[in-house]
Structures are given as C-alpha cells and as structure tokens.
C-alpha cells in the first residue's frame, strides 16, 4: 500500500518545497493553502499523514486538526509551526497531533519527520488489525470449541458411561477403576473447555439485562459455602465480615458469586495449610468494597500487571496446583460488566489482597 500525504499550509513556498523534497519518493501528495479545502482533500484522498500549519487565515489549524480527528482518529497529523510558536505546537500535540515541524526546516528534517510519521501510521494500523483479529478469534474460538471439541468429548463420555453400565458384572475391580479414571479425565477436560467458553462468552451487555438489587451478604455466604470443602481440606478458616449486613448492590447474583468463588479458590490454593482467608464487604459513600485477603505465597511484583489477563497462570516454577489461568480473567470481565474495578495488592511471602469496587446503589 502506498503512503499518501496531505499538506495544508497557507504559504505556497512551503507547499512547493515540501513537494520538491519528496519528488522521486513516489508518495502521492496533495496540497492546499486553505483549511476548509484541506479538510475536503483529507476526506477525498484518505491520506496516511497530514501536515497542518497552525497559523492560517480562515479556519485555524487547531480546528482542522480537530475535524480530522473526528473524521478518522487514526490519521497521523503533524503540525507545522513557526519557531516562535513552539508552545502552540505542544498544545496541538496534547490534543493528539503526533509531532511538530518547526519552520524553517531543512530537506533532511522534513524527510525524517515524514518517515517517522509513516512509521507511526503503520504501527497504528497494525494495532487496529491485531485488535480486530483478536476479537474475531475470540468469537470464533468459542464457537469452534463448543461444537467441534465439546461434542465428540461428550459422545465419548456418554459411551463410556454406557459401557460401564453394561459391563458392570463382567469387569474386574482393576478394569472398573481404569474405566472410571478415563471418565474422570474426560470430565476434567470438559470442565476446562467449559471454563474457556465462559471467558469467551461473557457478554457484558447481555449480563446487564439481568441486573437487579442483590444482597451482598447473600453473595458472600453463597461463595464461601461453595469453597468451604476445599478450605477444610487444607485446614483453612474463611472469616467473613459484611458491614452493614443489609448492604446491597445492583448486579447479577450468579456471576458475582462466581467472581468471589474464583478469588476464594485462588486464596485457598495459594495459602499455607492452617492459615486464614478473610472476606470483607464494606459499604462506602460511593461504592461497595469487597475484598479477599490471604497470607499465602503472594505474587511477584513483575507479574502483577498480567494476572487479570486470559490464560495467565503465573510462572511454572511457583505454581502449586494446576490452573487454567482464567479465573481472574473471568472475574475481571464480570466486575467490569458491573461497572466496577478489581485490583490486587500483594507481597511475595506475605500474601495477597484482591479488592473489588462496585458502584453504590443509586
């Protein structure tokens, strides 16, 4: 794809020299001395890079910049400015211009800034393409997994169940055990796929349709109840405090319970045997703060920025149990759908505290 340039400057000599400098480079260039005409040109020629003089008669360079941004925020803009007005160039950059070109400039300076502008444009377009691809992959992946992978597994599992029933009195104990182990393995796999699908299919707008007023105390007690067996196995005590007991939020009970369960499962997983996990809910003027604190192994500082991302399960060296790396990603999506935030505070060797902030009831 060839790179197009548009130059808008009221000084003809600037336009001429720019065109001359780039002659032979093969870049198509359109130029104009008028801001309004410039906007037309941008619309028609869809340039990658636009140079705009800040000081022009007629509509101002700032307005031109703003309208270009409204047309297509991904067009890279560079302002041309006199030496005395570098200050306004900085203002323009604060509003989204990528760089500035101070007058007078040498051919080399101009060529360099054009190269940098194109490079920026390339990166912008690449980022867009990648984001789009990621989104597409996410959607299609969910569909492919649910049909192409899950169905055969379900068929295998169903047949194993039937076989087990049919062969009840013909298999010896060892054979029965093996058949059972096969089923457990497939169950694990089905559960993993189920979790993946959950991450992919958390549709935030759909989720909001089911929002209603829910009791925080209920969410906490349901979540704690479902994690209790795992906690007991490691002799971990889960303490809860909800203040005030009557506090409520607007949301979806099922998914909020799921979020809290995910946090609690992690807390138990990464806690030392015999320790405590604290769940707290506290009502504040603007939001409701829910936190889960453990005194376990903690999270290294360099990993903190990634833990809410899909499939991130920590470095293998410190994994204590198998993990799909999705629990926190699901939690983050659900909390975001509720208009809230989820953050973590952690110190290796001391433990972690996960905090969910949800907007207070209207």
């Amino acid at each position: 794809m060839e790179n197009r340039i548009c130059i808008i400057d009221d000084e003809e000599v600037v336009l001429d020299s720019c065109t001359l400098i780039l002659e032979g480079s093969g870049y198509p260039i359109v130029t104009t001395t008028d801001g309004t005409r410039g906007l037309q040109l941008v619309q028609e020629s869809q340039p990658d890079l636009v140079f705009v003089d800040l000081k022009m008669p007629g509509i101002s360079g700032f307005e031109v910049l703003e309208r270009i941004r409204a047309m297509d925020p991904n067009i890279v803009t560079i302002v041309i400015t006199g030496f005395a007005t570098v200050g306004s160039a900085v203002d323009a950059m604060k509003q989204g211009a990528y760089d500035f070109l101070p007058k007078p400039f040498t051919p080399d300076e101009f060529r360099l800034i054009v190269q940098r502008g194109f490079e920026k444009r390339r990166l912008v377009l690449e980022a867009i393409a990648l984001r789009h691809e990621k989104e597409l992959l996410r959607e299609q992946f969910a569909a492919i997994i649910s049909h192409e992978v899950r169905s055969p597994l379900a068929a295998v599992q169903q047949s194993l169940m039937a076989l087990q029933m049919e062969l009840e009195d013909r298999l010896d104990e060892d054979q029965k055990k093996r058949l059972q182990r096969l089923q457990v393995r497939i169950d694990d796999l089905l559960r993993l796929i189920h979790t993946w699908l959950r991450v992919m299919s958390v549709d935030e707008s759909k989720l909001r349709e089911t929002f209603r007023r829910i009791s925080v105390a209920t969410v906490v007690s349901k979540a704690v109840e479902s994690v209790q067996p795992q906690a007991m196995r490691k002799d971990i005590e889960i303490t809860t405090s909800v203040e005030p007991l009557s506090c409520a939020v607007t949301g979806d009970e099922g998914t909020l319970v799921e979020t809290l369960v995910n946090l609690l499962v992690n807390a138990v997983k990464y806690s030392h045997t015999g320790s405590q996990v604290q769940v707290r809910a506290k009502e504040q003027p603007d939001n409701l703060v829910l936190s889960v604190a453990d005194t376990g192994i903690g999270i290294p500082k360099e990993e903190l920025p990634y833990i809410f991302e899909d499939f991130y399960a920590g470095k293998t060296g410190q994994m204590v149990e198998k993990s799909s790396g999705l629990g926190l990603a699901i939690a983050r999506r659900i909390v975001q759908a509720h208009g809230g935030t989820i953050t973590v505070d952690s110190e290796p060797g001391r433990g972690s505290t996960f905090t969910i902030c949800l907007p207070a009831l209207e």
Partner: protein
Amino acid sequence: MATPKKLLIIDDDPDFVDGIKTILRKAQYEVDVAYNPKDGFKALETGQYDLLLLDIMMGRGAEGIMVARKMRKDTRLREIPVLIITGIREQIAFLFPGEQVHPRFVAVDELVEKPIEPTLLLEKVEALLKEAKVKKAKAT
C-alpha cells in the same frame, strides 16, 4: 409386565446416540433413533411415542428447536414429553447459573446437558413420563 414405553431419539451424533440408547434399552425402554430433524419429525408423526429425546444443535444450527416448534403446532404431538439433551447449555447456563432451565417448548419438557449421567438420564425420563401421565389423567 406392562408394555415397554416407546422413546424416540433425534440427534445427529451417532456415537452419542449409541451411548444413551444403550442406557435406555438396558432400562427396558424401546428406543428408536432418527439422525436428522426431518426423519425425526416424520417418525414422530407416524409412530406412537411416549417420550422424545431431542438434540438442539443439529445440521447448520439449532435445528432441534424447529422440531420443537413444529411439535407445538400439532395438538397430538405437543402432549409428548420432551427431554432436551444439548451441548449448548453452557451458553444458556451463563444467564441462569445454577438454576434449572425449563425451555417450555412443549407442555412437558426439561433440559439437560451432554454428557448425562446414566442414573440422571433414567430419572429424568421417568419423571417426564410420570408428569405427562398425570397431566393426561387430569385432562380427561
């Protein structure tokens, strides 16, 4: 002994069908199978079935739903209890975590997820047959 109940399975996955068919036959049910919605609906119209086990995702999409819709329009067929066995529950379940999902396509129906535990399958089939019988007794 009472005459065995007649069940029809409509599902396009032969391996899955073999699995549930074996379980149902072992429990003394008489089982017929149709491997696509078209044959399935024809079988429903011509045969006398006590219960239908219906898959949702068949062919190019949720074609099982079409079978249920057509059944609803037919005064005789809509009395047949339906056990919907589907792999898509994970998408439905997200909206109702932990809740029982009753599709209410026809008078008596219920939804379970693939794969289904043999005991659960037999329980559900039995319960649906019973519910349909009670309903029929009330109507007459």
